[in-house]
């Protein structure tokens, strides 16, 4: 569990090493659980679709039938993971060593590593702020993990958050059913968030919202009077200690609760992640969703 601590991960330089550390540590803690299947037991044949790794084509079957089939194993059932990473400026906030953006990138890298290296799933990445900044098409090809990790390395926070516009573009990208993981701090009204993400669910994909927040954002503590400066808009608001202790906490708690309720109502998974918490909760959530799809 020590290797899942974000503060420890922050000291590791490469995202590939972070992902490997997280996933291997996570798997080591599963104790041969058969539920999530990492065996090599044959499951089925599946018709080849463009983008599949040719190494998995059963050439014997092709010789017999002149049709391309992929040999699938239990635990390697076809699934497509698409990670939507919010890289807006609000994600650069940190009250301790790990920024929200770093936490989200660790998590995205770990999910992709788990999917590509362990589950043989196709994995892709969409980096967005107020528009789609980067897009790595889901694939299982060799080198896909490094492409995803390279894109994550470059996903430094900037600009503002606007979910609606970029997710409209993402709808065009996501054509195959799969698992869509949205990593964001969701600083928009819950109704708008759900309204923007819900169309992805309609295409048959499982959507999980990982709400990444810093502990300081949930329990704002200031001494005396302060002027808070918005990281995205630069707006300044003088805030008193009394307001932060009472009104703000009520509002952020209500916001999270409403977002969870609306996400549940729309069939979207929701999990609130604090940047001080280990990453295993998110990985478990992902595997649970994946198992549900299988």
């Amino acid at each position, binding site marked *: 569990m020590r290797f899942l601590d974000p503060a420890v991960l922050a000291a590791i330089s490469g995202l590939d090493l972070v992902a490997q550390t997280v996933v291997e540590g996570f798997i080591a803690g599963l104790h041969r659980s058969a539920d999530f299947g990492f065996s090599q037991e044959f499951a089925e044949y599946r018709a080849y679709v463009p983008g599949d790794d040719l190494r998995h084509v059963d050439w014997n079957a092709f010789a017999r039938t002149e049709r391309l089939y992929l040999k699938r194993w239990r635990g390697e059932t076809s699934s497509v993971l698409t990670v939507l990473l919010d890289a807006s400026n609000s*994600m650069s906030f940190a009250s301790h060593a790990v920024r929200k953006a770093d936490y989200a990138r660790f998590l995205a890298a770990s999910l992709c590593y788990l999917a590509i290296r362990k589950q043989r799933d196709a994995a892709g990445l969409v980096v967005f702020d107020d528009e789609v900044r980067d897009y790595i098409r889901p694939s299982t090809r060799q080198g896909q993990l490094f492409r995803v990790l390279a894109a994550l390395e470059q996903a430094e926070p900037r600009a503002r958050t606007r979910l609606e516009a970029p997710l409209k573009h993402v709808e065009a990208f996501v054509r195959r059913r799969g698992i869509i993981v949205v990593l964001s701090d969701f600083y928009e009204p819950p109704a708008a968030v759900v309204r923007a993400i819900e169309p992805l669910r309609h295409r048959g994909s499982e959507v999980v919202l990982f709400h990444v927040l810093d502990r300081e954002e949930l329990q704002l503590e*200031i001494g005396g*009077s*302060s*002027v*808070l400066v*918005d*990281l995205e808009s630069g707006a300044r608001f*003088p805030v*008193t200690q009394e307001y932060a202790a009472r009104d703000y906490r009520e509002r952020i708690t209500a916001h999270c609760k409403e977002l969870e309720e609306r996400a549940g109502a729309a069939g979207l998974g929701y999990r609130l992640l604090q940047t001080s918490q280990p990453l295993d909760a998110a990985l478990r959530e992902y595997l649970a969703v994946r198992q549900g799809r299988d």
Partner: protein
Amino acid sequence: MGFLAPAFLLGILGVGLPLYLHLLRRQSGNQRFFSSLMFLEPREESAVRRRRLRYWLLLALRCAVLIVAALAFAEPYIERPGAAVPPDRLLVLAIDDSFSMRAGGRLAEAKREALDLLAARRSRDRAQVIALSSAVSALTPATRDAAELRAAVESIAPGDSRGSFAALASAMRSLAASERTPIELHLFSDMQRTGMPPSFAEMALPASVQLVLHPVAPTAAPNWAVESVSAPGEVWSRSARVQAVIAGYGTPAAMRTVSFLVGGRVVATRQVSVPTSGRAVVTVDALDVPYGLDRCAVRLDPTDALPADDEYDFTIGRSDPRRGLFVHQASDERSPLYFETALRATDAAAFTLDKIATDRAASVDPAPYAFVVLSDVATLPGPFLDRLSEYVRRGGSVLIALGTTAQQSGRIPILDAKLGAARDYSRQAERFASVGTADPAYPAVGSQGQWDGVKFYYAAGLDAAGVAAKSARVPVRLADGAPLLAEQPFGEGRVVLLASGLDNVTNDLPLHPVFVAFIDRLMRYLAGMEARSSARTVDEFVELRTGREHAAGVQVTDPRGERLLSLGAGTAADRLQLTRAGYYELHLASGRRDVIAVNADRRESDLAPMPAEVLALWRGTASSSAPASGASHAPGTNGAPTGSQTGATEAQAGAGAEGAPLQRSRRDLWWYAMALLLAAVLAESAAGSRYLGTRREAS
């Protein structure tokens, strides 16, 4: 309540700064970056209101700091009556002993008034006696010793210097800077108008000095004077031409008798009509002077209010002309002609010239000659060249004119330096070269403008001849930079090189007026005959030695016959200020004996006093609380101050119950203001730390 330095009150305007910071400038607060302000509202009115209330206290303290600081620097004070004992003061008695105070017993009158003032002085008052002329001399320190003060006043003797009220004001400014008590300056003077500086501001006195004037000669007395005498300092013939200017100051038209004295004996007398307050010139064309240094004078009869300026002393030195040796080529008849003509063209020919051709120079000894000129010679007989080199090495001087013949030899005699390529300007487009730069500091050169129009067709190659070395001096260069005149030290003597001839062939210099002046000055320089002045003015300085005459003994005897320099000072003194009129005898470091005639500055002869309004203005600058007694001493009144009137502050406040005058005591509030400032600063620091400390902690 008043302020000693009210200008510092302008610092109160600085309160605008905290006002701006507190009220106009937006409160920045403790800034923190945050993810989103989505759940925040600027609802902190109550907190802001509370903070402003606190900040008003801080603002008030900061304003108080600035105001109290400005007050402290302005040095506030309060005056309140009641103290019967007047404060201490320093009486400064300035007695004018300038030359004009010799007129009509003015100095005696000034000393008498000063003694009266000292007699009426309160015993607790300190006093100081100073003598005023061109400079201020403190005769006593600030003391209460009446005997010392009276002795100092009585010791003052009439001087010959010029009075300067600017010097008095300057001394008072220095004294006021170091003196804490008020100063009462009593000036006993004839208030001569010529003693004023060009700018009245130089007479301004500091505020702590109260000026009380004691004019001893409120009206101008008519005075005739020998204003100046124009006479040669040195002659080489039997007679000299002497011209004297007789001036009248506030005088009617009158006939005066002017006598010319040589050695105390009247040798000529003239009658002159001097117009009303005007000048007349008297000339003696041939004043017979015997050999040696003659003490001469011009005397005016009959005497008047200031007899001391009716005689003007001067000296004339008569000697035989010095001999010079002119060596030329046998074929050259032109250069000796031009050179000798130039030497004789001056009013008083100081030299006689022995001309000799090079082929007859073998047996000539240059030692008796004041200078030697080698005019464009190619070769010299060996024995003569050896003697000439030794002559220069021992301190003699030689002028070598390098024409075309000398250039052919390729070397410079005596120096044995090689000549470079000659410059033949006649073959160039311009056909000639002009003088480019001339150093007027060199004794023989004169101003550069005098050389305009002189054409040089040929110049020897001095630039490659070693004269450009560091030890050489090149005072004149041609327009193309080629050296024309250069001086090279050789042993104890000097060799002056002229890169052209004296024969009107290689140049047309002998045809220009500058040639006469150039040859005269150059030969005097080579012969070591500096221009001698016939008379000097009191307070001038005289040089006692040149740079080469270190450690040589000098002795000076003043007009009273007293030796001015001790043995130690005589070996070290470089110059001496002439402080008395009369004849100074000097035994200079060079071994030469000289007599200098010194006369008082004739601006002292104008006895007109300063206008009354100027005097009133001067008193006004001394102190805003000018004493009433000052007015009673104004010019035009004969009222001399009595003992009971001497205290300016007494007269201001009136007499007290016991005869002691009532005073307004001044109490400085500076220390109170500083204490208040310290308290305000501490309070501001405490308030600021308390209110702003939370913000720092939060950051």
